[in-house]
């Protein structure tokens, strides 16, 4: 129960942070990349603000904590290699981000806000996520081993 309530609160604080930061307004995302128009550096301040909190907490936790409060162990990414999938997948994501002005977090929380555009984008996004995961499961079922070692073990985020 507390794990679920905690996750709910985490999502809620994250969503409110996105709204205050202006990240639920696609025009501000596009503004960050629009070097030839009315430039809006806000996105950089959001990322820096978040990293400013996250990095010291992360470094303190992995050095001094045996385990997280509600789980038997930390579930952290283990891969270190740079592969084509990482770069190509991120490149595809970037095109979609620049096209729609939403990344996954702002899209989902804007669906809660009743945005029709976010709903259209978000439904297609979840279809893409679901199709990819289904495809991965089918491949795993056929070969009898994880086709996607990354997904089976631990992904980056």
């Amino acid at each position, binding site marked *: 129960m507390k794990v679920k309530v905690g996750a709910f609160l985490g999502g809620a604080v994250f969503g409110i942070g996105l709204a205050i930061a202006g990240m*639920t307004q696609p025009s501000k995302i*596009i503004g960050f990349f629009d070097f030839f128009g009315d430039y809006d550096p806000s996105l950089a301040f959001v990322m820096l603000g978040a*990293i400013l909190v996250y990095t010291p*907490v992360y470094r303190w936790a992995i050095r001094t904590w045996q385990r997280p409060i509600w789980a038997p162990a930390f*579930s952290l990414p283990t891969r270190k290699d740079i592969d084509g999938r990482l770069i190509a997948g*991120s490149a595809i994501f970037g095109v979609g981000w620049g096209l*729609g002005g939403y990344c996954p977090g702002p899209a989902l929380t804007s669906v809660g806000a009743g945005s029709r555009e976010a709903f*259209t984008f978000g439904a297609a996004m979840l279809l893409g996520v679901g199709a990819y995961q289904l495809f991965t499961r089918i491949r795993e079922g056929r070969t009898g081993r994880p086709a996607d070692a990354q997904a089976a073990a631990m992904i*980056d985020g």
Partner: protein
Amino acid sequence: MTNMESFTPIASTIGGLLIGIAAAGLLLFHGRIAGISGIAGGIFRREPGDISWRVMFVVGLLAAGFGWHLFFPQDYAVGIDRSTVALVVAGLMVGIGTQLGSGCTSGHGVCGIGRLSKRSTVATVSFMITAALTVFVVNEVLGGSI
């Protein structure tokens, strides 16, 4: 021209700090990376015992949007001209791209860079470059509407 009329340094920093607090909380309490695409992708993987916290995190995101828009509906203004087809194509690319690249702005851009991960730094540079190129094409070549 760059007159920065929509720049919101203080609000964006405060919002960023809140995102950092939420991500730090998920790490300390759940031992998890607060990457939205990873959290959502895990729901579809349907690993026993690994679904409910993910669903509740997404429900929290949705509830925040619902509650916040009652008081500040302008925070969800779209402000750009995109057709339904463009939004669907964009959504599909974000969905597939984040799963293939195993992360998005939160997982790679905030948590990954925050962990000083080389993979996440490369991923972030990759999606930032293609996003900028896409915005250039949409705004400068297609006239800002697609």
